[in-house]
């Protein structure tokens, strides 16, 4: 085996230029795959992160049925048992209580339906990035002007043509009666989350202002929870669900509340596979061509080796080893280069401002940060090695079918 390894290693360097070209080609293919994976990850991660960071949180606790019909009728009084449990759980990073309903936002010239979110700014800062995204004006708790403050998104501000200090009216169904609650608010701050669709559809006021407007008393519609480790969302949600079920409440992880996000991510990854396959097909034909050429050049030598006692299985093994060694070299250099490029780009970000509008509706920000998971690197590299082995089978089989006498006669 060691002899075959030595032989295979030396054989691949018989034609240094050809081997170098093949290694470069395979390396380029692998770098292409890794860059594509990095880019795909960047916007898939953004879709997920935006959904979680902007609004959804890792877990939400609310009345059973609220998720399907987010109405003020599902408002509940805060449960001490829940807050105590959250406070005692080391996996929980932060939580915040909210009043979140659909409302009608009106100006002098237009009206539109928006998501009204009543927040406690001090708690909210731990569960979403909205308050950090205020680009103009001040956050809610820094408002020191007359009137009740409201934060609106940049895109909404542009649509309704209102700026800082201007008045808006919000209306929504009150709880427990058939009345419509309303309130006038002044724009204290304008936020830009990077997600235009979100910015156009969400407004933020003080939780107490929302409770008053909607006749809720001290009731809330949801508790949003952020964990230290997002991957524990399902587990923690299941535990909380078991705890609150008896109180006609439910605890749902982001995956359960946003199955479309998870499915979109999974589907997007699957859809990229045919694209990656193009790179691997190119690698495959490179390997196939190179080995067939090498075997053609070495037909006589192979005939001699068969004559003096090399058996066909060892011959096949030798050729497969040659292919594998080339692939290992290529993977080593390609993986390092691909990883390095993605890391470099990931640190700087790629500005896609020219596509901002389209990206916004997909939940993707203007600037994307490519990244690779270990599974991507391992998977892409393993696929390259597998391609090298599989596509070496035919040349190896061809070589093993050579009749020694005929092969020795060839030049």
């Amino acid at each position, binding site marked *: 085996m060691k002899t075959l390894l030595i032989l295979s290693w030396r054989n691949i360097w018989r034609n240094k230029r050809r081997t170098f070209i093949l290694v470069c080609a395979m390396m380029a293919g692998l770098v292409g795959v890794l860059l594509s994976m990095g880019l795909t990850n960047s916007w898939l991660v953004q879709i997920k992160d935006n959904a979680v960071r902007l609004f959804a949180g890792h877990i939400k606790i609310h009345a059973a049925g609220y998720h399907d019909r987010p109405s003020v009728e599902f408002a509940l009084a805060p449960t001490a048992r829940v807050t105590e449990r959250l406070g005692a759980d080391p996996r929980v990073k932060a939580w915040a209580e909210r009043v979140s309903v659909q409302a009608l936002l009106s100006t002098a010239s237009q009206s539109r339906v928006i998501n009204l979110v009543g927040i406690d700014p001090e708690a909210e800062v731990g569960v979403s990035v909205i308050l950090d995204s205020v680009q103009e004006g001040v956050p809610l708790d820094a408002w020191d002007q007359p009137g009740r403050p409201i934060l609106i998104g940049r895109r909404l501000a542009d649509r309704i043509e209102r700026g800082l200090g201007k008045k808006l009216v919000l209306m929504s169904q009150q709880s427990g009666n058939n009345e419509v609650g309303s309130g006038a608010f002044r724009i204290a701050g304008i936020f830009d989350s990077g997600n235009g669709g979100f910015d156009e559809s969400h407004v933020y006021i003080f939780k107490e202002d929302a409770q008053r407007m909607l006749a809720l008393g001290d009731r809330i519609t949801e508790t949003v929870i952020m964990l230290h480790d997002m991957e524990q969302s399902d587990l923690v949600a299941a535990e909380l669900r078991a705890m609150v079920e008896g109180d006609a409440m439910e605890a749902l992880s982001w995956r359960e509340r946003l199955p479309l996000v998870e499915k979109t991510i999974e589907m997007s990854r699957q859809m990229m596979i045919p694209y990656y396959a193009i790179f691997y097909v190119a690698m495959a034909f490179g390997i196939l061509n190179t080995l067939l050429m090498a075997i053609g050049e070495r037909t006589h030598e192979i005939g*001699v080796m068969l*004559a*003096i006692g090399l058996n066909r299985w*060892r011959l096949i093994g030798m050729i497969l080893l040659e292919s594998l060694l080339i692939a290992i070299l290529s993977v080593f250099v390609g993986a390092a280069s691909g990883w390095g490029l993605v890391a470099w780009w990931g640190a700087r970000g790629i500005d896609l401002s020219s596509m901002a509008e389209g990206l916004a509706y997909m939940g993707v920000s203007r600037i994307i940060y490519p990244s690779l998971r270990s599974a991507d690197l391992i998977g892409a590299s393993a696929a390259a090695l597998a391609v090298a082995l599989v596509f070496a089978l035919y040349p190896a089989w061809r070589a093993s079918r050579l009749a020694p006498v005929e092969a020795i006669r060839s030049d």
Partner: protein
Amino acid sequence: MGSEDRMPLISAQNVVKDYRDGDTTVHALRGVDLVLEEGEFTALAGPSGSGKTTLLNLVGGLDTPTSGEVRIRGEVISSMHPRQLHGMRLHHIGFVFQAFNLIPVLSAQENVAFTMQLQGIPPEECRRRALEVLDQVGLAAEAGRRPAALSGGQQQRVAVARAIVTRPEIVLADEPTANLDSETGADLLDLMKHLNEEHGITFLFSTHDPMVMDYSRRLVRLHDGHIASEQRT
């Protein structure tokens, strides 16, 4: 392989070998009978196309006869399982080719050790025996060199070393002096004769080199696929 001492080492009985060459059938051997005893130093001579290389290939199990039988120690080669045939070539037959046919990426020592490694002999013993045999053929100092750094004569000596290092019963040499000058060829033949006389290795050559014919103790002349004559010296 059988162990009956009186049985000839090689016997060919009424061997016919035909090849298809497009629409034509080439009759390379037309009923050849040949018996070779252990320790012989025999040359198959004849012009190109006489069938000498074909007969050599049949004896070496590299090809199968169209009809007739070739036996080594009583066993019919053509009825051997491919694995058996391969084992026979690996353990009992050494080959020396006209064009040296060393593996270019292996050193002289590695080339000689190659067949032993295929036999599964431990690497350290392979190296030791390879060096011993290279010393026997006068090339111990060139053990680390690759074929491209050796002269034609040196390469052929390495090929002989490779052929004998596994201690085969027979060495089949196909025109071993064809690419050598006369002095180098003579040196090579001296070596092979020495191995034959000292170690009892049977040599069967195919040649049209008069010098090889002179060295051989038995000369079998082929012509047009038949044995035309035989003489012993």
